[in-house]
Each structure stands twice: as C-alpha cells, then as structure tokens.
C-alpha cells in the first residue's frame, strides 16, 4: 500500500488552473501597469509640449480640437489601463475594487487636464462613459 495518498486528478487540475490564472493575472497587472505608465508619460509630454512651445495654443480652432482629442484620448487610456491593472491586482489580493480607488483614478486623470478646458470636457465625458460601461458589465 502506498504511503502517500494519491491526490485526485480533479484537484491537481484545479491547482494547475489556479496557478495558470494567477500567472495570467500577474501578467495582466504588469502589462496594463506598463501601458498606463506609458500613457502617463505621453500625457506629461503633451502637457509639457503645450506649456513650453505654446504651439497648440494657436488660434486655429481645428488644431485646438485635434490636440484636445489626442490629449483626452491619452488620459482616458491611462484611466482604462490603470483601472484594469488595479482591478486585477485587487483580484489577486482577494478584494474587490473599492469606489474610493475609482474616484482616486478619476481625480488623477482629471488633474492632467487642468491646462485646457476642452481636454477636461472630453476627458470627463470619456471617463463617465467608461465607468458606466464597467458598471453595466459588472451588473451583467
């Protein structure tokens, strides 16, 4: 008779699945964190470029709108990837994403828009849509 109890095949499979899920979650946390970091840098560059050159503050309306769309897209993508990264991170710790973290992320996103009211409006609309989408997905 064997000294060791054979683990049932089902449990082994489950363990493997959990390990693989964990690895996947860690990968996802890292990749989305790197992406959000990239978008922070891009947003910093756009704000700095605007501040230093003043080129975007040209009097051409279409240029201003294009700049505002690019800048707000960058900030929205930062919010999106940060939310996924934090969500997965919290998932790994066994806790759900708190509303305070979402508010903090929204605050951090909106603070990047203080130089340009047009960017602020576009970003706010984008963030609201993402939050509504996330809420609906969760509810679903």
């Amino acid at each position: 008779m064997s000294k060791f109890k054979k683990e049932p095949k089902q449990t082994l499979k489950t363990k493997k699945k959990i390990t693989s899920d964990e690895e996947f979650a860690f990968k996802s946390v890292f990749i989305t964190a790197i992406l959000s970091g990239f978008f922070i840098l891009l947003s910093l560059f756009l704000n700095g470029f605007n501040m230093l050159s003043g080129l975007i503050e040209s009097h051409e309306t279409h240029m201003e709108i294009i700049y505002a769309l690019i800048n707000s897209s960058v900030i929205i993508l930062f919010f999106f990837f940060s939310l996924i990264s934090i969500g997965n991170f919290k998932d790994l710790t066994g806790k759900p994403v708190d509303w305070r973290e979402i508010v903090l992320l929204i605050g951090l996103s909106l603070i990047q828009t203080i130089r340009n009211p047009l960017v602020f409006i576009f970003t706010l609309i984008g963030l609201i849509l993402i939050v509504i989408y996330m809420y609906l997905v969760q509810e679903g």
Partner: protein
Amino acid sequence: MRKITVNILICIFIIHIVYTSNFLIIGGSGALKEIDPKFGDAPKIDGYINRSVNEWHNATKVNTYLYTNLSNPVNGLLINLWVMQSELDLYISIQFELDIYPNEFVGILISESVSEDEDKFEFDDFEDDDFEDAKIVQFSDLGGGNEKVEYEDNYISDAIFKEDPKSNGNGTAVVDEKKHTYEFIMPVNNSDEKRDIFLDFGEGYAFKIVHGEYDGNSYKDSIDRSSIVIIYIQYLPPPPPIDPIELIVRILLIISFSALGALYGFYIYKVVLLKKKVERVKG
C-alpha cells in the same frame, strides 16, 4: 483796403513758399530718413506680401527715393521701404514700379555703426568705402523663359564686391508686370561671420539701397540708382509677464505629475511585493 488784402495774400504766399521749400530741402538735399523698426510677426521671405495674414503689418513704412546721383538728388525713383524686426532678424522689403531689366538687381549695402552724436545725416556723410557688406537679390533673364532669382551675400573690399564664403541672411523678389517687390532678412546680434557687419542692438547703421542692371563684371559699375537710410536696431522687447493664474496652473501641473509618478512607482512596488509573496507561499 484792397492794398491790405494784397499784402496779406503776399505774406501768405511767402510763408507758403518758405514752408514748402523746407520740405523740398529735406527731400532733395540729402537729409537721410532715420528708421526705428518695430517688432512683429516674421514675414515669409517669398517676394509676396500676404495681406490675408497681415504680413508686414507691423513694419515701419517709409517712402523714399532712389537717385541716379546722390550728390544731386533729384528726380528719384519712389520706393516703399518697409523695415521690421522679429526676434533676432531684421526684415526689409523694397517695392517700386519700374520697367523690367533682364538682369536687374537690388542690393542693401551696410556700413559700420553710425555715430550717435550726429543729429542729422546727409548723403555726403558717407563714402562708397564706408559700406562693407552687401546683400543682393539678383535676377537673370527677368521676364524671359529662364527667369531666375538668387540671393548673394557679398563683402566689399576696395570697392570690389566679393562673394562671402559663408552666406548670411536671405532674400528674394517677385516682379509682377511693373511692380517689383524685394524682401530681405538678415541676422541681428548673432552673426559670427567676420565679413558681415554685426548688427548690434541699440546701434544705428547706414543702409545703402542700390538698384541696377548687372553688367556681368562689377556690381559697383552696374548701380543705376541708390539711396541711404539710417536704421536703428531696436533691443528685443521684454517678455510679457507671466499671468499669475497660468503660473499657479503650471505649478499645480508639476505637483500633479510628480504625485502621479510617485503613486505609480508605489503601485509597481506593491505589485512586485505581492508577486514575491505569492511565490514564497507557493515555494
């Protein structure tokens, strides 16, 4: 009564003659125009005045004459002379109406800085030798099939125009029927070329505007008309003061991004810690 009226009319006539002759003396005897250029948006040096974007809008605009003989300045060719500064450049536009010459050129000859002690300058105050730098826009085959326009930066040594090995500034021209428009740009306070006149802030320089048809040998002998003006290079205007709200926004932005960077770093640190912790538990 009639005698009094006649006397009054004679007095008015004499006053009028004295007054107008004063202008004739200024225009004709060689009293030079002195120009303090204004600052404005840099125009495009393409030979066209683009009024839709207010090109040359801020330029100091004067009318003067190019004379065939500066010692006897009469019957000159009327030119519009526009002068302005933008950042570290001086811009000059010369416009006039004249028949077309195939090898026409317009040059700007520059002297060393003029003395500030003199109240008024006259043509006779300057000799040909005083001008050491020449910026020339030269046409070839103007109005023909092989029309070409070139900018040349020359220096003048012993009255001979020699091509500057390192060209500074730029210029071009467009001739539309009889309307000639020449545009020049030259650096202010930033020329490192010894053969160029260094245009310094706060200094005045004599600019001799010359027009002629190049004979293929010598610019000096090809000059048909000329005039001299004094241009005082203006200091750069002080930068506008920063708006306090703008300053606060900038500081807030710097603080925000610093905080964002710190939070991001902290988050990555927490993720790494968690990964290590999980690996330790697994091990």
